[in-house]
């Protein structure tokens, strides 16, 4: 099985509607909230639609009510009004007031629904984002080390952070906006049709043009968008490369020619942006003009109908109002589809990562392991990281309980690989690795790793404080355990000198600590977890003599009573080993005790002499 390489574009093979459906599935846990939110949207849209109707009715009923009788008054206000008209006007004013109260109630209801709807929807959206992010993070943690060997940290982090963030637009905005606009269009159309079919149909006459223009626009804009995206990516790649390669540019004094190159790329992006801008600059006014055409169509036919007495002036008023609100959602729909598309692009990236299966598969029925005797066996093990270039070739050995075995040999001989295989960070191609006679593939991965204490060459320090770096926030490890472990491996010495002691904060990668201190800290960490098997890749770093002595002592203590496998560099560590295996080019060439190997006068003797220098 090939490991996913995030550098490569492996997106084309994914079906877009499939991605969308899969995304929608994430709403399920919050479905009730989402539905409530949609209902609220329906209500809000209803209220929005009702407002002009309310005004139109008020005009028809109260203001226009007696235009005929009072038309003189409008033209000639100096004439005193008679009491009858005065009385009816009082009624009209009361009607207006009544309408106002309804209008006010509508306003308040809209406000409440709007607040609620936005909150609910955003909450749902954010919750979904939270869940997806949690899932992506958990998944990356489950992936095998091979995945991390191939893919740079930055790329993986981007999947967890930015790509997931890009989905938030979709869940907390676009989906509902699409729905809202869709409902608005349907709602407006229904109301218009119910008021006057002929006038409504006339207003809709321009719609096919809108659709055609929108489709054309979509096609052009998608093409320009794609060009822009690729130009942005190109420019960013160029920038990233040239900012990190600035030194080369400067030492070759190539600033001017590199600037010209950059300007060319920058200009390409500018042109792409410019084209994109022009597409929008043309599209929006065209749609606007179409809405004006619809408006005059309604005015023209409406006026004609009014003069013929088939509609009231209130109806005409409502239609004039609706026409402008009818075109907004249509235009928005077109643009929201664009955003939806870019969300789907991010989703594709996330799903490719989620579809990557961990290569180290936990056994379905793991053999329960008791606290065993800790005997380790390699039987004809063949191993390659990439299925091709074998790092280990037919390696067999047995490490008896409590034994300390040191592996020595040149870089690339396969020593470190052996250490990685015992904790099953990689699976071997051929052969068997057994612990107490059980194949490690049949043991629960976590149970296996808990038994093994790994001391890595490159000590990784998490940001936090000293104690959290020893306990790794394991609640089973008390503060006392931490201090005891540190004391036991001589780490207490430097920790107690720190201003904050065990609470002293350490920054990312432990830059404030020296290499030797980090080493001691990692010993304390390992000891605190009290493993029964110790797997150790000894650091080669140059450490001052004082710390060196502390480390040697600590190592001795750490190894006592534990089956230990180590890649050793220090002569002192090697000499104390029960058995030494000399590796060369993926094979074990010599093995025995220090004395035996020296006497044999082979590879080891030469390596030993080298070390002595």
């Amino acid at each position, binding site marked *: 099985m090939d490991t996913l390489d995030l550098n490569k574009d492996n997106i084309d093979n994914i079906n877009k509607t499939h991605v969308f459906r899969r995304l929608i599935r994430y709403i399920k846990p919050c479905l009730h909230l989402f539905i409530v939110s949609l209902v609220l949207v329906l209500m809000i849209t209803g209220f929005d639609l009702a407002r002009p109707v309310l005004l139109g009715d008020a005009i028809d009923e109260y203001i226009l009510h007696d235009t005929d009788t009072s038309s003189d008054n409008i033209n000639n206000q100096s004439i005193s009004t008679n009491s009858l008209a005065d009385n009816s006007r009082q009624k009209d004013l009361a009607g207006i007031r009544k309408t106002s109260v309804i209008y006010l109630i509508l306003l308040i209801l*809209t406000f409440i629904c709007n607040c609620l709807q936005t909150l609910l929807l955003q909450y749902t959206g954010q919750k979904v984002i*939270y869940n997806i992010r949690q899932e992506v993070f958990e998944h990356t943690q489950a992936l095998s080390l091979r995945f991390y060997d191939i893919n740079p940290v930055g790329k993986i982090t981007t999947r967890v952070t930015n790509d997931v963030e890009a989905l938030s637009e979709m869940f907390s905005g676009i989906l509902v906006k699409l729905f809202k606009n869709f409902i608005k269009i349907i709602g407006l159309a229904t109301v218009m049709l119910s008021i006057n079919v002929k006038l409504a149909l006339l207003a809709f006459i321009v719609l096919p043009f809108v659709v055609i223009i929108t489709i054309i626009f979509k096609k052009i804009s998608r093409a320009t968008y794609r060009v822009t995206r690729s130009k942005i990516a190109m420019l960013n790649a160029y*920038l990233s490369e040239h900012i990190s390669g600035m030194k080369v*540019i400067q030492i070759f004094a190539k600033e001017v020619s590199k600037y010209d190159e950059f300007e060319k790329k920058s200009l390409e992006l500018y042109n792409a942006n410019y084209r994109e*801008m022009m597409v929008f*600059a043309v599209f929006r006014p065209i749609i606007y003009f179409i809405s004006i055409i619809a408006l005059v169509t309604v005015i023209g036919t409406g*006026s004609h109908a009014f003069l013929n007495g088939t509609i009231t002036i209130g109806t005409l008023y409502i239609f004039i109002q609706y026409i402008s609100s009818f075109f907004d959602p249509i235009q928005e729909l077109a643009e929201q589809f664009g955003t939806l598309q870019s969300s789907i692009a991010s989703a594709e990236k996330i799903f490719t990562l989620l579809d990557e299966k961990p290569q180290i598969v936990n056994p379905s029925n793991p053999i329960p392991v008791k606290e065993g005797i800790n005997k380790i066996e390699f039987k004809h093990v063949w191993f390659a990281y990439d299925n091709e270039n074998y790092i280990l070739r037919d390696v067999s050995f047995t490490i008896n309980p409590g034994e300390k075995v040191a592996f020595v040999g040149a870089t690339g001989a396969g020593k470190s690989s052996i250490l990685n295989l015992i*904790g099953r960070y990689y699976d071997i191609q051929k052969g068997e690795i057994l612990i107490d006679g059980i194949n490690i593939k049949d043991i629960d991965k976590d149970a296996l790793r808990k038994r093994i204490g*790994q001391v890595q060459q490159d000590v990784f320090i998490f940001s936090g404080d000293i104690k959290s770096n020893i306990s790794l926030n394991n609640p089973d490890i008390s503060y006392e355990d931490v201090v005891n472990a540190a004391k036991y491996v001589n780490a207490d010495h430097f920790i107690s000198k720190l201003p904050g002691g065990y609470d002293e904060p350490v920054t990312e990668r432990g830059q404030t600590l020296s290499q030797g201190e980090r080493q001691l800290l990692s010993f304390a960490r390992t000891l605190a977890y009290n493993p029964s098997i110790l797997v150790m890749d000894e650091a080669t770093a140059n450490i001052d003599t004082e710390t060196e002595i502390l480390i040697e002592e600590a190592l001795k203590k750490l190894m006592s009573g534990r089956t230990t496998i180590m890649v050793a560099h220090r002569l002192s560590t090697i000499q104390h080993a029960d058995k030494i295996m000399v590796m060369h080019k993926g094979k074990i060439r010599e093995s025995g005790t220090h004395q035996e190997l020296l006497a044999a006068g082979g590879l080891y003797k030469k390596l030993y002499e080298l070390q002595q220098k």
Partner: protein
Amino acid sequence: MEKKYKLSHYLYKYRVKYILGILTLFAVDIINTYIPQFTGEVTDGLTARTLDMSGVYHLIIKILLCGLAIALCRFLWRYFIFGSARAIEYDMRNDLFAHLETLSMNYYNKNKTGDLMAHFTSDLNAIRMSVGMAVISSFDSIFMTIMILIKMFFNISISLTLLASVPLIIIAFASIWYGKNIKIRFEKKQEAFSNLTDVANEDISGVRVIKAFVRERSRLKEFAKYNQDNMDKTMDVVKLQAVAIPLLDIITGLSSLITLVYGGSLAIMGKISLGQFIAFNQYIGMLVWPMLAIGESITTFSQGKASLNRVYSIFSAKSEIIDNGTYDKPVMGDIELNHLSFKYEDKTVTALNDITLKVNNGESLAIVGKTGCGKTTLVNLLLRMYNVDNGMIKIDGIDINDYKLKHLRESFAYVLQDNFLFSDTITNNIGFGSSHPTMDMITSAAKNALIHDNIMDFKDGYETLVGERGVTISGGQKQRSAIARALLKDAPILILDDSLSAVDTDTEEKILNNLSQIRKGKTSIIIAHRISTIMNADKILVLDDGNMAEYGTFDELVKKGGIFATMYEKQQLEKQIDSDESNEGEVK
């Protein structure tokens, strides 16, 4: 910061377009107010029975003409203002890059590539939004508000206008308050997101430890905290928006309500006509957008301001290396170090300590020593990648600070330790340092660096793309390409910084032989770990923690029995083991 990098300077450059854009914007707003007026005339005329169909058609033509003019002007202001905003973005982007090219290594040691890139992407974007979209919205909304208010004021009713605009004044003040608060919350949200990124990044880098100690679940819980915090901070932003935007709606709704109550009674009393009442309603509707836009542009402006400050911080960064030397005569290649000491800006210990030596034209100097002892620092100083005091480094007897910087650097052919190649063709990579290399020159440099045969093995030969989007080439091939690049430059002084570490000893020997022939009579500085690389150097400098531990010829140093002698013996033994190995064959 230089004046030309001020935003005002960029704006000034496009002033004509901006003025034209704003004028067309105003034109749209002015014409826009006529449409409700004409529709009002239609409804008025119809109710008063003073309008017949030909009158209606007359007004329709007027509306259509207005619509056409508006559509045209809308296109034009987009063209003028969005176009200018894009042009400003383009100019700033180029200036940023040009400025970055002038900054020294000290700056790059302190600033991460990713962070610098963010200035080009998100910051320039935010600035563009400010000088484009936000300029339009703010001008548009202010002007439109004034226009509409005037129309309402003079054409309809003074008292109604005053009353109906009370809620709108509230909006103006509220949006300022809103802008301030949303910014604070937005920044908190950004911070939470950046914390989340840090945690994810750390856990992904430390995945080996997490797996080894079976801490996956605990880290997942820890991650959940940051994830939750990010969600909470996002919700804080959203909560404010969730209240503020509907509130805006209700306030504009109040204006409509006032119109209905007061305007309606005015209409019933006959103080205003029905058409005026309808037009007034439309005007109120037209005021909603400007009010919203003001709030939005305040937010955009404040984000743009923050980004502008970030971009300004790059523009105001100055290189401590000031190119005010004038010397530009051809370099012969005498190098003189005179009590050279150097300390990196942010470090407490010196990287180099009191180094004095002289390399004559045509000689070769080898530098050896442990990692971090100052070898690379020393050669970087020769090229003035960092500043040294006057008199410390002289080339041909002239202080390097008196050289024209470009001339000084062009006098070196430097093969860097990390063999940086650009994602480009092999031809362009090898030809990088030279002005107009011919294909023959490139092939001959490649042959001398023993990379020619490898290149010919590639499908596209010299036109093969290397780097991210091209073929991946091995470390040794990279090194040899970098050597070819330096050889082609044929500069007076050649520097090889650990440049043969990834090639086997056999190839190394051949390359060194070629070098000694091509570089006859020219100065070379070779940094290496392998003794075989430097055996033939005229002088060897052994650095230890920045100090000049040993200095002399090969024989002298071996005899001396110091650091160099130990190194040499060790490597001799290793070599022996290796050769024994290959003779021995399979094991017992």
